[in-house]
């Protein structure tokens, strides 16, 4: 039955005509959408391949395997003092310190030079300086620690793995143009030749770098610069955020969503929480510096301050995520619980919360992950300080992973640190991805259908 003035056939013809237009629009939209997705994927792929291709080699670095003779001629020290009876511990400590100073004074570099010469006799003819430059300067402390710990090894020979100097690593792995004139090379010709020879003989090998994971940052001995300090610092901050921001955020969200009366005040709070989530992170850094460091006199550059600042920053995210997870629980569940006479608290904790947990966990972990990658606020509370120890409590000065990346990125030995920076990024990303994977796992574990 045609309605209006058009016959059925005309109606069909018009619909067909308009269909063509509609189909074109639909196809165009799909094409745009798809190309957007593809572009995004390609960019991510490029990012990951570039980071992986640059960073992965940094997990391996040039390492010597040398017989080191603990030459008593060079290590001329008194026997390690022992506490005699009747001696006060203060006195003993003083004697021990004097002994340690003595140990410190030993020319450890000579031991290393000698070991190289022992392995490659022609090095004897070279300037000692040129030989010494093969091994990164931090390694002499390894010898010192060994002797300080166990003086009886003096006079013995030990096979040790010693990191080559950063420049040697760069040279051997071709990260510097070998045809550059001597003036532009970091190493003397003799050192370079010797390095090549030792590499050929297998005395220097590219080995998996434990230093990257075990050592803190270093500027004097670039080859032994590692991520351990930054990793531990970030770990502390993450724990602080997890145990501070998550419980506080979840609790406030539950209160606001389930218990708080709906009035002007709670509206105001809600608006402000949303605003807080949009505040640039660097502002939180300023806030942290002003409150935690200036007012509460907490030490600068410490994970405790970093953690507190990041907690503040994460709090709105956690609250918003938790509230939306609570909102997503169907009201029928609440009604069901209230209908059999459950109290408000029983309803919330017995029924609503268990259903919201996957969402809450996801939100919380994503918040933590976001905090983990945050750099700007940390710069303002001095976490960009150069710290060479691994913090054992959150109250000690420490580096943090994202800041470490920033610092390494600025290091002048680009040829070496470009890879190191990417390696640090890989570590950070791996940490983030495992956190996200954990979030997904948790969600799957707690997810229930209703």
């Amino acid at each position: 039955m045609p309605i209006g003035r058009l016959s059925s056939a005309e109606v069909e013809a018009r619909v067909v005509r308009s269909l063509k237009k509609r189909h074109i629009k639909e196809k165009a939209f799909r094409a745009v959408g798809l190309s957007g997705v593809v572009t995004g994927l390609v960019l991510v792929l490029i990012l990951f391949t570039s980071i992986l291709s640059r960073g992965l080699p940094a997990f391996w670095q040039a390492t010597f395997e040398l017989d080191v003779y603990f030459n008593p001629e060079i290590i001329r020290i008194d026997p390690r003092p022992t506490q005699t009876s009747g001696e006060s511990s203060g006195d003993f400590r003083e004697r021990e310190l004097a002994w340690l100073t003595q140990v410190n004074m030993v020319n450890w570099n000579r031991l290393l030079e000698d070991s190289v010469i022992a392995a490659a006799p022609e090095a004897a003819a070279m300037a000692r300086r040129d030989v010494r430059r093969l091994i990164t300067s931090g390694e002499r402390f390894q010898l010192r620690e060994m002797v300080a710990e166990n003086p009886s090894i003096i006079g013995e020979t030990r096979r040790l793995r010693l990191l080559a100097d950063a420049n040697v690593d760069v040279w051997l792995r071709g990260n510097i143009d070998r045809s550059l004139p001597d003036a532009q090379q970091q190493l003397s010709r003799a050192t370079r030749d010797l390095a090549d020879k030792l590499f050929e003989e297998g005395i220097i090998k590219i080995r998996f770098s434990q230093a990257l994971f075990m050592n803190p940052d270093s500027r004097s001995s670039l080859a032994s610069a590692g991520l351990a300090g930054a990793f531990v610092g970030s770990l502390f901050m993450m724990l602080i955020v997890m145990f501070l921001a998550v419980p506080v955020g979840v609790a406030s969200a539950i209160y606001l969503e389930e218990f708080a009366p709906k009035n002007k005040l709670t509206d105001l709070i809600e608006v402000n929480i949303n605003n807080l989530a949009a505040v640039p992170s660097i502002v939180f850094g300023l806030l942290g510096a002003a409150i935690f460091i200036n007012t509460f006199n907490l030490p600068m550059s410490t994970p405790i301050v970093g953690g507190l600042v990041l907690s503040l920053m994460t709090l709105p995210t956690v609250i918003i995520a938790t509230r939306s997870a609570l909102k997503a629980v169907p009201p029928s569940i609440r009604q069901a619980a209230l209908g059999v006479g459950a109290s408000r608290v029983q309803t919330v904790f017995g029924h609503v919360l268990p259903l919201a947990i996957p969402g809450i966990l996801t939100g919380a972990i994503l918040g933590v992950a976001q905090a983990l990658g945050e750099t700007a606020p940390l710069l303002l509370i001095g976490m960009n300080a150069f710290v060479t120890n691994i913090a054992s409590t959150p109250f000690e000065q420490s580096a943090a992973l994202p800041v470490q990346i920033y610092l390494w990125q600025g290091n002048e030995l680009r040829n070496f640190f470009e890879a190191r920076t990417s390696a640090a990024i890989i570590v950070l990303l791996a940490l983030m991805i495992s956190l996200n994977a954990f979030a997904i796992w948790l969600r799957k574990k707690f997810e229930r259908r209703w």
Partner: protein
Amino acid sequence: MSTNKTVRMSANDVRVFYGDKEAIKGVSVDIMENEVIAFIGPSGCGKSTFLRCLNRMNDTIEGCRVEGEITLDGNNIYDSRMDPVLLRARVGMVFQRPNPFPKSIYENVAYGPRIHGLASSKRDLDEIVEVSLSKAGLWDEVKDRLMEPGTGLSGGQQQRLCIARTIAVSPEVILMDEPCSALDPIATATVEELIEELSSQFSIAIVTHSMQQAARVSNRTAYFHLGKLIEVGDTDEVFTKPKNELTEAYITGRFG
């Protein structure tokens, strides 16, 4: 039919406001012992709102205010001494969509008795669960899978599980808010049959938008229109010779 029964709940000039809007305009009706009373009426007539007053489910809605008096066994349920939690244990509710907890069938039924401390031992609880499920006509269907999730049952079974969950607390009155609107006809018939069986032990108030359902299950029918109670009487009477023109127009499908 209902004249010689005792009154269980009694509403007296009940008015409900949502903000400034008056949703229920002075409703007075009694709910007798062991009867099924059906509340019918067009959408928005206030029948569900009124039902929710009877166990103070409206308390959870912002801006909802109830005036007038509703008594349960002579005590005003809006009295400050009446704890809504206790009230809801005595006046249970079954909702429009089956809403079992995402827990096992057993846990669904055991939840109410557990929070109210009705069972003193595991065996007590088991018994309550079995009796409740049997009364809900579900025991034979689920006795071998009590630990499976309640949400895995069919729609009709879920609704009967919800009924079992409600009667497990031994309420005096059961409120049902369109309990079959999400069910297919066969499941509906099963639930209706169940309602009829339950009426020997409980007072049941049921809101339904199907007047046929009201005719099938109820002893008395109350017709609501624009927030007012137009007519209440024996279902036979209401469906064969309603007293009010509005009722007649609605049940004969001549509304508006």
